[in-house]
C-alpha cells in the first residue's frame, strides 16, 4: 500500500511544477496585457498570405 505515498507525492510534484510554470509566466508579464495577444495571434495567417503575394517581387529583387 505504500504506493499511495509515491502516487500522492508525484501528484503534488506535478501540481507544483505547473504552479511554478504559472509563477514564471506571471513574472514574465504574460498576465499584464491580456488583450493584445488575442489580436496578435490572428495576424500570423494574414502574414503568410501577404508573403505569398510578395514572394515573386522579392525574388526579382534578389536577381
Amino acid at each position: 500500500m505504500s504506493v499511495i505515498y509515491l502516487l500522492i507525492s508525484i501528484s503534488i510534484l506535478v501540481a507544483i511544477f505547473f504552479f511554478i510554470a504559472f509563477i514564471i509566466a506571471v513574472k514574465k508579464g504574460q498576465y499584464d496585457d491580456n488583450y493584445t495577444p488575442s489580436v496578435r495571434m490572428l495576424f500570423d495567417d494574414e502574414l503568410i498570405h501577404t508573403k505569398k503575394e510578395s514572394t515573386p517581387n522579392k525574388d526579382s529583387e534578389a536577381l
Partner: protein
Amino acid sequence: MVMENCFHCGLDSIKEDQIDFDGKTFCCNGCKTVYEIFSRNDMTCYYDFEKSPGATPLDISGKYDFLDNESIVAKLLEFKEENAAIISLSIPHIHCSSCIWILENLQRLQKGISTSQVNFPQKQVRITYNPETVSLKTIVVLLSSIGYEPYISLENYETGKNNVDRSLTYKLGLAFFCFGNIMLLSFPEYFDMNEYWLDSYKPFFRWLIFALSLPAFIYSASGYYISAYKSIKSGILNIDIPIALGIIIFFVRSTFDIVMDYGSGFFDSLTGLIFFMLLGKMFQIKTYSFLSFERDFKSYFPIAITRINNDLSEESIPIYEIQKGDRIAVRNQELIPVDGILISDKAEIDYSFVTGEAIPVIKKSGDKVFAGGKQIGKLIEMEVLHSVSQSYLTQLWSNAIFQKKVEEKFKSITDTISRYFTPVLLLIAFVSLGYWIFIDATVAFNVFTAVLIVACPCALALTAPFTMGNILRIVGNKKFYLKNALVIEQLAKVDTIVFDKTGTITTNIKSNISYSGIVISDDNLLILKSVLRASNHPLSRMLYDFLPEGKRLKISEFEEIAGSGIQATIDNTQLKMGSSSFVKNQVENNLKQTSVHIEINSVYFGKYIFNNHYRDGLESLFNNLNRNYQIKVLSGDNEGERETLENLLPLGTELVFNQKPEQKLEFIKQLQNEGKNVMMVGDGLNDAGALMQSNVGISISENVNVFSPACDAILAATEFSQLDYFLKLSKKSIKVIKMSFVLSILYNFVGLSFAITGNLQPLVAAIIMPLSTVTIVSFVTIMSSYYARNNNN
C-alpha cells in the same frame, strides 16, 4: 456634391480636394504619403484588418529636436546597453488591430529596430532597437510620419522602468493552488468510511494538507493581517480585523485538531475562503490602463524647451533646468512651461488646457505670459520669470490637498458595518464560551473557535467588491470611468454638485455662432469658407464648420496676421476678416463677446459672434438633479453669461464668477466645512485643486484618450447628460450591498446555530462556506445588473 472617404484615415473629403493615387482616394497629401510608405514596404495589409485605420500625420519639424540631447534620451529609456536600448512610448492613436499590426512590424520600416511590442490596453509600444544604427529621434519621427505620433511629456522623464505590482496575481494563484490540492486530499475525510487502509493513511493526508495550507495562510492572506494591524493601530475597526481574526483562529483550531487527532481541521474551508476573498479583490480592480487618474501638470508639459543662448545659438534643455532670466523659444503648438515676459511682438495663446476656453488670448510684447498656454502661430521668444516649480499653475500642486491619499479620506460602507459587527461577534463568541465552559471545557474551546470561524465575515467582505466591481464595469461600458470602487460609495453620498462653467457645461468644440450685419451673398460665403480653410486659428476652424458646405475656390493671395486676422484675395475679390481693430481700425469695447468681423472689397459687412455653446441635455439634466441635489456653478470667467445661465438653470442655482483655481478649491472646502458632501465636475487644469478637494471629482473629457487632470472619475463629454443616471445607479448599488448584508447575516445565523450547539463538522463547514460565497456573489451580480438595466429605461 460627391463625398468620398479617405482610404487612409476615413475622413470625408470633397471631390475637388481629393488626391488619387494607386486607384485609391486620399483626403490630403499626408495620408497619401503614409500609404506610399506602406505600399513601398509591402505592408498594405495594414488596411485589411480594419477599414481606414490611419491618422493624418502632422507637421512635426523641429518638435523632437530635443531627442538629439543624449542626457534627455537617457532619462526616457527603459534600458540601455551598447547595442541595445528599450523604450516604451505611449501612442494615443492606437485603437484597432491594424495599429497593433503596423507597430509590431516596425522593423520592416526601419533598420536597427529589432522588435516592437504593443500593449493595447495601455496604448503603448515597447521598442527594442540598436542605438548605433538608429537614433531615438529617427524612430519617433518615423512613427509620427506614419500617423502614430508618440506622446512624450514631462511625466516620462526619469520614470525609466516602471515596476508593475503583480503581488495580487501571485497571491491569488497560490491560494488557488493550495485550495484545489487540499480539496482533493480532503475527499477521504468527507466520506468518513472508516476503512482500514484509509484510516492508516490519515496522518499522512492531514500533515500534507497542513503543509499545503501554510503558504496560503502565510503569504496569500498577508494583506489582511497587515491591514488589520494598521487599523487597530489607528483605532478604527475595519472589516479586515474580523477577517484576519477568523483566518488565524481557523488555522490555530485546525492545527490543534490535527495535533490532538480530534479531526481533520478546516483547512479546505480556510484556503477556499482566502481564495474567494482574493478573487473578490481582483474583481474589484477594474483598471483602465490607458487612463490615468493621478495626472498633474507633468503629463501636459513638454520634456524639453529650446533655450536661446547669449550668442543666439539654440539648444534643447530639459525644462527643469530652465532658470530665471533665460530666453526661451516656443514654437507653434508648443506648451509654455514657465511664466515669463513676451519678447516677440505678438503671441496668441490658447489656454484651453488650463481654463477649457478654446479661444486664444492675444498677448503683446512685454506682457506677462503664464505657464500652461499653447502658442498658436509663429515662434515666439520669451524671458523666463519663474522656474517650473514656482510658476503660477504649478504652484497649485504644492497645496496640501495634493499630498493626501484619497483612500485615507473616507471610510467605506463595509467598514462602517464592521464597526458594529466585530463587537457583536466577539460578544457572541465569549458568551457561548462562558456557557459551555460550565458544561464541558473541551467543547467550550471548540464552540468558541467555531463561532469565530463561521461568523468570519467572508460573505460580508465579498459583497462590496463584487457589487462595486460589476457596477464599475457597467458604467465603464457607458464611458464613465471610475478610479476605484470607493468612488461609487462617495457618489451615493453626494448632496451638493458644483459645476465648472467653461468646458464643462459649455463645450469648446461646437460654438453657437450668430451673424449680425448686412446679408452676405452665397458667392461671398463660398469665398469666405475657402479662405477659412487655409487658416488654423480655432475661430477660423469653428466658423469654417459653421458655414455651409461648398465648392472650394483657389486662393490667389493669403496672409494671416497673428493676433489680428486674415487678408486674402480670390478671383479679384479682396477679403479682410478678423478683430475689429484689424478690419475697422477701431477697438470695440466689448470684452465679453468674441467676434470675427468681415470686410469684402473694402465694404464692411458685419460680424460673426461666438457664444458659448451649452452641452446638449443640460437643461433637463439640471432640472432632474435639482430635485435631489444642491447645484452650484463656478466659473473662472467674467459675468458676461450670467443672464443666459440664469435662464437655462433651475431657479436658485448659485452662480459664482471670477474664480481663480485656489478660490475654487477654497469654495469646495467651505461647503465641506458646512457638512456637505460635494461633487465637483470640472475639466481643465484650473479645476484640479477643486477636483482633488471635493468628495468626488469628476473630470469631463471630450476625448478620454487625451488628458484630464487628477480626479476620481472621468466622464466622456458625450455622456454628460447621463450624469443623473450614474448618480442614481450609485445609490442603487448601495441598496444592493445592504440587501446582500442582510442575506449574509442570515447565513451567519444558520452557521452560528451549528457552531454554538457544538455541531460544526468539517463537512458542514465545507458546504456552508462555499455555498454562502456562491449565493452572495451571484445575488449581487444579478441585482446590480438588473438595476443598471432598469434605470436605463
